[in-house]
């Protein structure tokens, strides 16, 4: 089949729509992930979403719901225990290793077809169902609305928390709010690129964007564009190639964009 024939297939359309929705949410939060030093938290959240997925599969036959529940629990723990960056990263490191082990253990008890949970690890963009599209759409809309509302105070609290607090901004409330948005976004992205490659949509686009601009709004716009190019481009490339998983190509394109931006980077920025 060529691309045009693929585009008449529902599985490909679903995949592309899902990729667009996820990329918008990821690109939007990525600059704040960078500013707040949350890259490792993203990784931790997404891997523990896998544990949640395994638990969800075992108890309720619903790995996706399990993944969201797992991610929200992790976000809460990070919010409560990880106020300082170093503390946070060691807490995540310890929990991550344990949680992943638990996930694999849970999966070994599952007698059915376990691909739904392993799909969370590597992504299954072409297996996206109708209700998943609705879910991803609702989450992306929620992320856009809340980010539009809190963008300025969140920026302030992210770059300059002490003065933000002095200005009456509820820094802690914003921390939690952002962690919850992050956990929802990360779990959504995991369904497209898999938990192992989530960083390619939630961190890389912002770091690439920062190489060519220092303005927060510009960086955010570039970040969304880069995430979109990576995710949609990865799907097309995968369809074209026929046998390479989309998630691998998504992370490949994302990395390529980073390399180009890095080459364009000058002292000015």
């Amino acid at each position, binding site marked *: 089949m060529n691309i045009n024939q693929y585009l008449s297939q529902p599985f490909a359309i679903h995949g592309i729509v899902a990729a667009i929705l996820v990329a918008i949410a990821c690109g939007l939060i990525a600059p704040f992930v960078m500013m707040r030093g949350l890259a490792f938290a993203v990784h931790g959240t997404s891997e523990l979403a896998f544990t949640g997925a395994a638990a969800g599969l075992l108890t309720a036959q619903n790995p996706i719901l399990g993944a969201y529940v797992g991610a929200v629990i992790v976000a809460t723990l990070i919010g409560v225990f990880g106020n300082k960056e170093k503390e946070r990263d060691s807490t995540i490191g310890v929990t991550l290793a344990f949680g992943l082990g638990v996930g694999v253990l849970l999966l070994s008890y599952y007698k059915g077809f376990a691909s739904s949970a392993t799909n969370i690890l590597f992504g299954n963009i072409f297996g996206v169902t109708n209700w998943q599209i609705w879910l991803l759409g609702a989450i992306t809309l929620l992320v856009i609305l809340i980010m*539009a509302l809190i963008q*300025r105070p969140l920026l302030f609290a992210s770059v300059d*928390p002490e*003065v*933000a607090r*002095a200005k009456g*901004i509820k820094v802690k409330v914003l921390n939690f709010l952002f962690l919850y948005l992050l956990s929802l976004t990360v779990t959504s992205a995991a369904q497209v690129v898999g938990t192992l490659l989530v960083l390619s949509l939630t961190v890389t686009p912002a770091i690439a964007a*920062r190489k060519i601009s*220092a303005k927060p709004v510009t960086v955010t716009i570039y970040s969304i564009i880069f995430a979109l190019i990576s995710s949609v481009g990865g799907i097309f490339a995968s369809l074209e190639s026929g046998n390479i998983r989309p998630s691998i190509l998504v992370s490949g394109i994302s990395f390529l964009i980073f390399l180009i931006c890095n080459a364009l980077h000058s002292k000015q*920025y």
Partner: protein
Amino acid sequence: MRKLPTPIIKLHNVTCNIGKRLLWENLDITINHGEFIAILGPNGSGKTSLLKVILDQFPEMSGEIEYCEENRVLGKPLIGYIPQQKPFDPTVPLTGRDLVNLGLSGNRYGFIKSQINNERVNQILERMNCADYADKPIGTLSGGEQQRLRAAQSMVNQPDLLLCDEPLLSLDIPSQQNLAAQIHEYSQETGAAVLFVTHEINPILPYVSKVLYLANGKWLFDKPEKIFKSRVLSKLYGSKIEVIELNDRLLIVGGEDESLTTHGHHHSHEGNFGDEH
């Protein structure tokens, strides 16, 4: 539009502890419009904590704070704040102009019209002589440039009260004098009161109208000529202190007070107190 010396904020019998350690007891001071108040004292004497008290961020305190500007938002005066110097990371996606802009609209949710804001930001950037580098990433600027932008940020929304926590630290002497003069000028023009925590009295000595000296759980609040006396400071510290005047500069010698050094590095333990609660 200089305002008369009416009070902005009054502290009544404020006592603060960090854990079991007493910072000071029954602090009773009134801060009026247009006053430039130097806050001095050894490390750990609670200078930063006092600013946190006024910012309503200090958990372990007793006593009362009275905000006298009730016509303002939230019944509090508008407060500008220059925190203890902490350089920005070079990767932060923020220009100097963005930082100043946050001082104006950073606490506002949703979308706002930014035209009037841009004008005010430009004005303060010009005034503080930082327009030249305001569009560069904040993390790539020198410590002095960052500090100047922080000062601009603290003044951009015309606060009634400026809280400055060692703003001169790590600046060279001409920059120190320049920044101190600009903060004083702002206070004179707008009638804002300034609370200026410092280890170094000399760069601000010409502007200081009152001194709050914290030491040994005690405090003194008076005009500088009454505080800077060997007898007065010796009594406060409980040990022999000499105050020497030398070509319009003050040297405070003896005790364990760092304010006598001209470039005292500050390692305050109460500095990040607010973060932990």
